[in-house]
């Protein structure tokens, strides 16, 4: 494929914003990419530093850098947390723009479509960011427009859509985490939290691994991406309950909370029909940054679950 040389055409205008980044690092504990790898190079601050390196000629463009800069879920957590008002996601988008079409372009967390694509175009319709296009019999993702929301991945009936990198937020990784946690002695519940509403402390540290906690919080990029099988899986294993946390009504950009509510309501109905207490699966809506509210919701849920006791699998 024909490529063009890398130029910092779109990035140039951000120079003074990057100068005003005080490199405090307040953004990095919020980033799901950093939290997964725990390498500083994957944190938002590092993205800004790498872009600065490209602009100042201290770094040569590379596939490695392109990959780092294209790994962003646009959750905006860093933008909100930034102590200096740096518009990180706008800058990241311009970085992707400058890498697009060069020999270094990589998909990062953006979606790719493989050969199993049935051309049903469900994903094209589902994309909230008009990033998917049907051109000459094939589906293309515009890596600049794509915000890695995963809607296309979830909707594809053929599982033909995937992301190159998912940083632990995809279904198989979450299922794996569920299984590992439920294998522990004291494990009782799984809490699924969307990255926006999810704001527990103990973000970067861990407690004594031998002191078994009763629940595990698993981050997902959006409550709307929690499909029913994923929510049900813990109960099919040994969990006593499942709590789903998503944003308050009106807060979600892609109505993921509406979808999450529908899933949880349907699953509660299913439990009822199976003569299982429906309260074993619950939904809570937590405002962004409300640590106390989230913890209180978890505590109340754990109280209920402890009253209900283990789920007898007959």
């Amino acid at each position: 494929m024909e490529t063009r040389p890398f130029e910092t055409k779109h990035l140039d205008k951000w120079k003074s914003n990057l100068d005003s980044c005080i490199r405090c690092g307040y953004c990095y504990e919020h980033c799901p990419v950093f939290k997964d790898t725990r390498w500083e190079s994957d944190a938002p601050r590092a993205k800004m530093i790498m872009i600065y390196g490209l602009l100042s000629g201290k770094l040569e463009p590379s596939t490695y850098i392109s990959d780092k800069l294209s790994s962003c879920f646009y959750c905006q957590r860093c933008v909100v947390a930034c102590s200096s008002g740096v518009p990180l996601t706008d800058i990241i988008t311009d970085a992707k723009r400058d890498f697009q079409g060069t020999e270094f372009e990589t998909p990062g967390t953006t979606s790719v479509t493989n050969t199993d694509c049935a051309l049903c175009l469900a994903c094209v319709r589902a994309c909230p960011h008009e990033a998917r296009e049907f051109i000459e019999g094939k589906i293309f993702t515009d890596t600049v427009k794509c915000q890695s929301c995963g809607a296309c991945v979830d909707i594809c009936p053929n599982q033909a859509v995937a992301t190159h990198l998912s940083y632990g937020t995809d279904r198989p990784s979450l299922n794996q985490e569920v299984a590992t946690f439920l294998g522990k002695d004291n494990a009782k519940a799984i809490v699924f939290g969307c990255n926006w509403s999810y704001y527990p402390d103990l973000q970067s540290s861990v407690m004594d691994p031998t002191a078994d906690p009763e629940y595990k919080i698993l981050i997902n990029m959006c409550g709307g991406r929690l499909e029913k099988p994923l929510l049900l899986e813990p109960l099919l294993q040994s969990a006593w309950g499942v709590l789903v946390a998503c944003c308050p009504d009106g807060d979600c950009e892609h109505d993921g909370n509406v979808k999450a509510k529908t899933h949880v309501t349907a699953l509660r109905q299913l439990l009822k029909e199976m003569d299982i207490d429906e309260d074993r699966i619950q939904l809570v809506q937590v405002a962004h940054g409300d640590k106390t509210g989230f913890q209180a919701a978890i505590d109340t849920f754990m109280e209920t679950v402890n009253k209900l006791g283990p789920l007898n699998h007959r």
Partner: protein
Amino acid sequence: MEKIDVPRLISIVGEKNVKTDPADLYVYGSDASVHSARPWVVVRPENTEQVQAIMAFANQGKIPVVTRGGGSGMCGQTVPVKGGITLDMKRMNQILEINPSDVFCRVQPGVVDDDLNHALKPFGVFYPPTPASSRIATIGGEIGNNASGVRSVKYGATRDSVLGMKVVLPDGSLVTLGARTRVEATGYQLHKLIVGSEGTLGVVVEATLSFVPIPKFRCLGMANFDRLEDAGAAIADIMASGVVPSMLELVDSVAIKAVNKTMDLGLPEVEAVLLYEADAMVKEAVDHEINAMQEVCKKHGGKGLTSSYDAKERAKIFMGRKKLFPALSKFSDILSSTSLADDMAVPYSKMAETARTIHEIAKRNNIIMTAYGHCGSGCMHTKILMEPTRQDQWESARKAVAEIYEYVRSVKGTTSAEHGIGISKASAFKAEKSDSLDLMRNIKKAFDPNNILNPGKLMDAHDDWVTATDLRYTIA
């Protein structure tokens, strides 16, 4: 990149925990300071044995090692001026034990301050040194810098809360320092020496920390002053009167203007604002301290006195101070907020004069400087707002910084109250501690004869901070 046996390092920590891409090295070459350099390799140990193996390897080849926590230091402490290995400690992040009956906890160095406090909360206690950067600062980094924060006026700095630690020495051997008891008089308390040593003496692999009960009542008050000198007199009076504030903060007119300009908080445009807080287990005790502080403020012409016990109200009162950082960064499109001469401490009676002097020096040198800070602990914070792409602004900054430290020494203040020395403050530190520098060099030699741990910092740093390393900015 210099030649270094990367496969050997991989054999110690595994391939997944070693980075050598130029982009990684560039990222790990900076912190929250103005400096920039590059390590040769970044390595993430998972346990003490791995740290020991890495140190033994480095010592053998005389390879520099820079220990790094969150990388939020403001004076270039983790900027690897001599290259070498950057030891990223964030994977050693376990809270190992919380022991409420013996009032201590044991943690690995990569544990983040906020996380520790979250874990302690159910026990009704907190770990008090807490710098403003507590959401990113690691316990190892706080030990390295002897970090402190707004409540240190009452609860002390990191050194006051560290009971003991395990440290890997440059030759790879492991020593256990300090004790688990509140007091200790068993020889040199070397763990206290490690605190504030900026990663130059050993690698902390475990720390034993004390904690204190979370007070049941907390009240925050505010007073406005038309004259900076009046606020200064109030501070000195409060501290001399036997009152124990849990926080006493000064905000100057430059800071107020910045907050008003960028945040629309509508703060009164006075010369100084004082924020004072008291906390205790019984309300009467808090009332007593707050009343006493308000009386002093009134006596010195303090106006618009407000105070509240309510958490939401307190947050409102504190908003101006909290928004100070972003306000300074957003102050102007062309000016950047830099951490230079940023945390000196002076005697209480010199607080107002110091703030005034800082303003004068800034004006004379054509830069903008604000003075604010934890005046209850004698700490004055400043930020230099400048155009970082202009060479002449760096000349001005160099001059202003030198003048400020000369003044600080003249009033018997000290170079750094909390952020440490690193590279940026080395020349001021050397001037202040000139008669004990040789002693410090000998201590360093006893721990680290090959000078592999964080070389080029403190006594070993370049005398001109502007040219000591590349600056993180591009200068036209």
